[in-house]
């Protein structure tokens, strides 16, 4: 791996922040310049994200493009980033979405332009950081840091009820994540030996793995009195609670039924850009959190609650769909459709079979693309009319043909018509669910959700676009302009390409899927995904990208000591026969699964 | 426990300052005769009862001036008890500083402000009742705690040299200026701060 590669993710994460710093200096009134600069920043970030994705696809190890730097060695917090298949895909999605978000709000936001774009750029950094973090606390920091700009996006640039919605969003997420913080600290103490406590993902995972096995074996034996190692005993006792805390935090973010109630408000009140980011990327943090943290760290507990998770997911699917049928507000409808769609993602995760997990991951991307596009498109007419009710529209097909065409294509993707990306994701999830050990009714109900989904989306399309033009105001609407078309087309391309040629993406995802399933089930392969902690100090303390890498600067009065924390980490973690700090965790994944 | 320490000990003595320094009272209690009150015991009880009553007077008297006078009385009686406790230096200080300086300050302020208190002296509310109850509970606990204490035999007092120097100005001074240097300096800082603070706060305008 070249030294460029090892720093690539830093650029991906912090490029928006650097641009934000530049933006900070720009005068307030140069709105054009501000928009252009933000757009360029997002383009650069998108390019970097694509580059990272391409570089990722070449490597064999599980976590690639890793970068490690000591941050607060006293508490075992390090700056450690790296991506696996799913993270790479989500980074790609986030990167591509960035410039589109800026374009989408080009004219929508006229007030406090500078602050708006600052918030978006900071948000981008936080999201990229959360996706790339390989350190639990680092992830938590980025996870929380996402809240502030999003809170401001909703609260300052949203619609009428924005303050309430913003507060609700913030508090819901915060409560969950604070509980997660307690659990995270618990994990940290359980998993890593005293004196060498570390928040590093790999260290924590490796520390817990043995305990998880013992617990699973103990549960299988049905024995109350199995002799357990201290780690296993702690896991036996607190594992379910900790899993619960992690699961709650992520379930709120997903959002799963019944903690979804913040989402419709947040989506309804948020500006277009806010809705797009929220739907496309931020909700994925929840599923991603399950994928990366909640399930692999506590497989025993996850298995215990597998059915409960799946049930909640299915309830979410059906409930979301039913709520959609009852909505009169279009944005609310799209928001509830998110609840439904993310139910599939959660179902896929809970099923713990390779197909379902792959489908779940794919569905995360799909949902990002299709719901993002839906919010974008709706934002366009909202900008023209500033009303959100279904009854305010009707017969738009006659007035805005291009818009209608786009909208319908996106709707197809959303209802999973074969040939679009949505189909592949949902199909895989359902297939995997039927193959899993979950009871049959779960799959059946989930299939029902597909039918309902088609029903509400098509009903909405019918009401909004077809039939006579019912409102006078709607007759004068002009169709999309060039900027709007340019914003939408990438989405359409993604929908079609992901629908017709999913294999490249699936290949990347599947590398992670297999490991996820092995970890979740502690199956025969579960010994394989032993992670190696990257502890090699950064090759040279080369100048970091401006303000980017929080490396530990030793104070002047610091005694010259050979960084004990680093040594501490090094000793136990690197196995003597590993010449390289990052071991490949598995041979290159060969495509397996449904395709 | 004050009562036991002073009153019921077989060879308790009063250790008086100045010319009476070596006036030793005879042991007053014998093992085979019923206990009698020794003079210092009587004195103690007189002072103790007077202290408690005058202290109660501070709390219940309505007129602030009466309260203040009652407080002065308390301080005097306390000084008497201090003497009985062989702490004549502190007793002298008590009279000088408390009764002489602090109380004059109090009276001065009361006169200066010519406070005439109207209305009831004590106005009970829920929180105050709670406070009173807490106080009573604390009193009960403290009484219980003191009751449990063993009576001291004052064995150290058999050493006349120690007894002679105990509580004397010389001894107090010697200890204070050698061992207690740091707190002493801290007190000097405190007094400086208090002077500055009092002047600053009491000025009519900045």
């Amino acid at each position, binding site marked *: 791996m070249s030294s460029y590669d090892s720093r690539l993710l830093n650029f991906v994460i912090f490029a928006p922040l650097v641009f934000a710093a530049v933006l900070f200096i720009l005068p307030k009134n140069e709105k054009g310049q501000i928009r252009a600069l933000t757009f360029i920043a997002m383009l650069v970030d998108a390019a970097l994200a694509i580059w990272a994705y391409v570089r990722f696809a070449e490597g064999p190890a599980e976590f690639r493009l890793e970068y490690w730097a000591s941050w607060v060695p006293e508490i075992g917090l390090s700056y450690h980033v790296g991506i696996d298949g799913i993270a790479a895909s989500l980074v790609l999605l986030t990167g591509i979405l960035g410039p589109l978000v800026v374009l989408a709000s080009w004219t929508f936001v006229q007030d406090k332009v500078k602050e708006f774009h600052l918030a978006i750029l900071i948000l981008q950094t936080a999201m990229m950081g959360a996706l790339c973090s390989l350190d639990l606390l680092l992830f938590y920091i980025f996870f929380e840091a996402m809240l502030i700009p999003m809170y401001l996006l909703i609260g300052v640039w949203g619609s009428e009820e924005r303050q309430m919605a913003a507060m609700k969003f913030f508090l819901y997420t915060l409560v969950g994540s604070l509980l997660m913080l307690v659990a995270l600290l618990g994990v940290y103490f359980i998993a890593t030996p005293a004196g060498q406590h570390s928040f590093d993902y790999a260290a924590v995972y490796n520390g817990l793995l043995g305990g998880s096995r013992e617990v699973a074996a103990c549960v299988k034996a049905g024995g109350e009195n199995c002799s357990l190692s201290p780690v296993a005993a702690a896991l036996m006792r607190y594992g379910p609670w900790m899993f619960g805390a992690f699961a709650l935090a992520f379930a709120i973010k997903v959002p799963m039924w019944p903690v979804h109630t913040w989402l419709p408000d947040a989506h309804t009140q948020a500006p277009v850009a806010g809705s797009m980011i929220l739907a496309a990327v931020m909700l994925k943090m929840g599923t991603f959190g399950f994928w990366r943290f909640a399930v692999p760290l506590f497989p025993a507990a996850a298995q215990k609650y597998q059915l409960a998770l799946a049930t909640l997911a299915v309830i979410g699917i059906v409930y979301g769909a039913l709520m959609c049928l009852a909505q009169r507000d279009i944005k609310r409808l799209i928001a509830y459709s998110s609840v439904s769609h993310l139910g599939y993602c959660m179902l896929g995760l809970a099923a713990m079979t390779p197909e379902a997990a792959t489908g779940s991951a794919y569905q995360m991307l799909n949902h990002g693309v299709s719901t993002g596009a839906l919010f974008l498109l709706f934002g366009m007419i909202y900008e023209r009319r500033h009303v959100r009710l279904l009854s305010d529209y009707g017969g738009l097909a006659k007035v805005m043909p291009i818009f209608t065409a786009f909208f319908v294509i996106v709707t197809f993707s959303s209802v999973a018509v074969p040939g679009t990306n949505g189909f592949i994701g949902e199909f895989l999830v359902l297939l995997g669910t039927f193959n899993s050990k979950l009871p049959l009714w779960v799959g059946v109900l989930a299939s029902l959700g597909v039918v309902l989904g088609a029903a509400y989306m098509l009903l909405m399309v019918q009401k909004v676009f077809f039939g006579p033009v019912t409102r006078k105001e709607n007759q004068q609407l002009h169709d999309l302009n060039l900027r709007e078309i340019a914003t939408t087309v990438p989405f359409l391309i993604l929908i079609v390409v992901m629908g017709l040629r999913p294999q490249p993406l699936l290949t990347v995802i599947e590398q992670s899927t297999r490991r996820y399933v092995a970890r979740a089930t502690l199956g025969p392969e579960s010994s394989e995904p032993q992670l190696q902690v990257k502890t090699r100090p950064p090759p040279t303390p080369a100048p970091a990208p401006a303000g980017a890498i929080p490396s530990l600067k030793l104070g002047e009065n610091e005694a010259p000591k050979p960084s004990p924390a680093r040594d501490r980490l090094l000793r136990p973690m690197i196995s003597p026969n590993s010449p390289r700090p990052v071991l490949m965790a598995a041979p290159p994944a060969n495509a397996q699964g449904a395709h | 426990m*004050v009562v036991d*320490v*002073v009153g019921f000990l077989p060879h308790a003595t009063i250790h008086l300052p100045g010319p009476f320094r070596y006036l030793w009272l005879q042991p007053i209690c014998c093992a085979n005769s019923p206990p009698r009150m020794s003079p210092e015991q009587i004195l103690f009880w007189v002072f103790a009862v007077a*202290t*408690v009553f005058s*202290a*109660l007077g*501070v709390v219940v008297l309505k007129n*602030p001036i009466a*309260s*203040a006078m009652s*407080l002065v009385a308390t301080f005097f009686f306390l000084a008497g008890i*201090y003497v009985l*406790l062989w*702490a004549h*230096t*502190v007793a002298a*200080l008590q009279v000088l*500083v*408390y009764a002489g300086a*602090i109380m004059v*300050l*109090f009276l001065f*302020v009361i006169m*200066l*402000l010519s406070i005439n*208190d109207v*209305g*009831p*002296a*004590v*106005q009970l509310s829920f929180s105050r009742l709670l406070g*009173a109850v807490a*106080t009573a509970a*604390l*009193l009960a606990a*403290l009484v219980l705690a*003191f*009751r449990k204490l063993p009576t*001291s035999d*004052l064995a150290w007092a058999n050493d006349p040299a*120690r*007894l002679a120097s*105990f*509580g004397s100005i010389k*001894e*107090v001074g010697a*200890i*204070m200026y050698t061992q*207690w240097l740091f*707190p002493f300096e801290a*007190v000097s800082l405190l*007094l400086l701060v*208090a*002077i500055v*603070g*009092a*002047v*600053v*706060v009491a000025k009519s305008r900045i």
Partner: protein
Amino acid sequence: MLAAALFCIGMLGVLVRRNALVVFMCIELMLNAANLTFLAFARDRGDMTGHISAFFIIAVAAAEAAVGLAIVIAVFRSRGTVNIEEIQTMKH
């Protein structure tokens, strides 16, 4: 035990009296109770520490009295009363 009684009388006074000056006097009572305790135990053990402590406490009481009375004067100047009930104007 006398000290305890004295202390509690003082505490009671602080908690129930309305006149600021009297409350202040009650605090002085509490300090004296501490003094008495120190001295009693000092005699008990033949240990001069209690005497020194009492000495310091008297000094502290004097300092406190100076500033405290200054504050009472300030309160009286701005309000015309030293009644605690009437000084409670800030809402909770």
